[in-house]
């Protein structure tokens, strides 16, 4: 894993998040402080209910914190209204979901092309870029296949191609290998490593799997909504 880290891309200060369940307020995250440098590959780990997915959602701008400051790529995303936040996500965030979340009625090529519909690129260039992205994930021969015609690993690679097609500032991955067998998981993790090392993509990945976490540059542990202190050791060391 090479590449250098530069200035903070994500700055989280005193962030908290609580959900309301009827009259009850359930705290999920409390006083989270975290900085993620541009070009970093960070794994968020923790037991179920620890708040790691919630933290990922906040960073991705699909959820809003109850308190604190959250800046991503120099933008205070907590202050953005819904429409601007959607435009911000389209420009800055690439999503990789556990269950791929591909549109079942679109082919692999069309799925990858989807985020580009939000740009002004002409159709021919959109298709060209989508084909190139699929080639990058090793699926040049699956352009016209529907998700149901692809294996889980292949679907996740299509999802990764979709996530990077618009050259986002940050990639967020929620259990990207959680639904895959070991071999497919290795392929996906290898791909993410390449994206980070070769293209300098900043990646924040939520995972339960210590093996997957070891592929990250840095591992952050959450427990009961609080960040555990990082010991500064290498990711491999911490996860192992």
């Amino acid at each position, binding site marked *: 894993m090479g590449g250098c880290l530069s200035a903070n891309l994500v700055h989280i200060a005193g962030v908290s998040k609580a959900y309301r369940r009827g009259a009850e307020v359930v705290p999920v995250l409390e006083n989270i402080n975290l900085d993620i440098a541009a070009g970093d590959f960070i794994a968020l780990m923790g037991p179920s209910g620890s708040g790691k997915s919630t933290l990922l959602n906040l960073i991705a701008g*699909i959820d809003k914190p109850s308190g604190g400051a959250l800046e991503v790529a120099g933008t205070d995303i907590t202050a953005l209204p819904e429409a601007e936040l959607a435009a911000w996500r*389209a420009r800055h965030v690439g999503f990789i979901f556990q269950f791929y*979340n591909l549109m*079942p009625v*679109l082919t692999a090529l069309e799925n990858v092309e989807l985020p580009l519909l*939000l740009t002004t690129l002409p159709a021919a260039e959109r298709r060209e870029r989508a084909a190139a992205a699929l080639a990058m994930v090793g699926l040049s021969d699956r352009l016209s296949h529907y998700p149901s015609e692809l294996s889980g690993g292949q679907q996740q690679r299509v999802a990764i191609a979709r996530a990077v097609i618009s050259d986002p500032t940050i990639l967020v991955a929620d259990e990207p290998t959680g639904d895959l067998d070991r071999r497919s998981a290795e392929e996906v993790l290898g791909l993410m490593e390449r994206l980070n090392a070769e293209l300098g993509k900043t990646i924040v990945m939520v995972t339960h799997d210590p093996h997957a976490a070891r592929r990250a540059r840095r591992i952050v542990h959450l427990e009961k909504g609080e960040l555990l202190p990082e010991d500064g050791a290498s990711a491999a060391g911490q996860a192992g």
Partner: protein
Amino acid sequence: MHYLRLILRNALRHKLRTALTVFGLVVAILSFGLLQTVVDAWYSGANNAAPNRLVTRNAISLTFAMPLAYRERIRAVDGVQAVAAANWFGGIYIDKRNFFPQFAVDAGPYFGMYREYRVNEDDFRAFLRDRKGAVVGRKLADTYGFRVGDTVPLQGTIFPGTWQFNVRAIYEGADPSTDTSQFFFHWEYLNETVKQRFPRRADSVGVFVVEIDNPDRAAEVSQAIDATFRNSLAETLTETERSFQIGFVKQTEAIVIAIRIVSYVVIFIILAVMANTMAMTARERMSEYATLKALGFGPAFVGTLILGESLAIAFAGCALGIALTFPVGDWFAAKMGTLFPVFAVSAGTVMLQMACAAAVGIIAALFPMRRAARVNIVEGLRAVG
């Protein structure tokens, strides 16, 4: 293009469900079209009435006759161009179920006024020469197989006895909305026979059809005719042919209203079915809508996907329903025989069918659109389709 593809492929995702919904729409749009056409058929007499024709009847009621002598006095009224006596005959052809309208008319002036009845000149001359002659409409002739030269026996009800008529001519309609289900014969033949069999009922006329020179003077001429017979034994009521026909329809207005209501109830039912389909569809795809929103697509994009799908299904049902309305309407008209003299699907009915389908498509999508557009991304991503 991408957008349209998404909409159409989504619409075909559950082929059976979509097919059943489209089938329901076809049935609803078809039923609506047929019921509206029945209503139109009810009003066809009024809609086809000419503005320069008046009808004079006994002021008490249609069942009371007027003296034949009125004919010349009406002809003398300023603005009147022609007058023709006419009587409803009400005969039975073989069986009571074989209903069709029969009129005894002053043939010359009557057919002169009803130029929309197109008769071959030679045949018409043969009809004028034969006192037992009859002119029948094309639809009536086709229904019962009447041909020129045939003898048609009618069992009189208002004028008892068996009456024999010789078909001398078959009239065609000037356009598809012309009533060609009628049977006309000579008023003189009726009067002569009545004179022999029921002398006290002779020289009595059911209605006078009056042609005027200027439709704008219809009210004035009507008043002048009625004023002529004021304080007589048989006072008259003169009105435009359209008003006269509407008067008939009004007697059965409750049925027409019921048919109209049923036609809209059918649309309401399919609206409920369609709304249910779209609600199920949206619920199943909530995680996809959340994904689209996460990727940066706005609520309008997600909402339009649902609206587009709903409209696509409604359009398919509408197109098939309208396409079927014409042949099914023809079949229905043939089965109904002469009960509906004019049974033609109008452009207005087709427009209404399209409007109803569009309304169903839009209204059915409203609630799912709102729900999908407002879906919380985090909750939506957790949703299981």
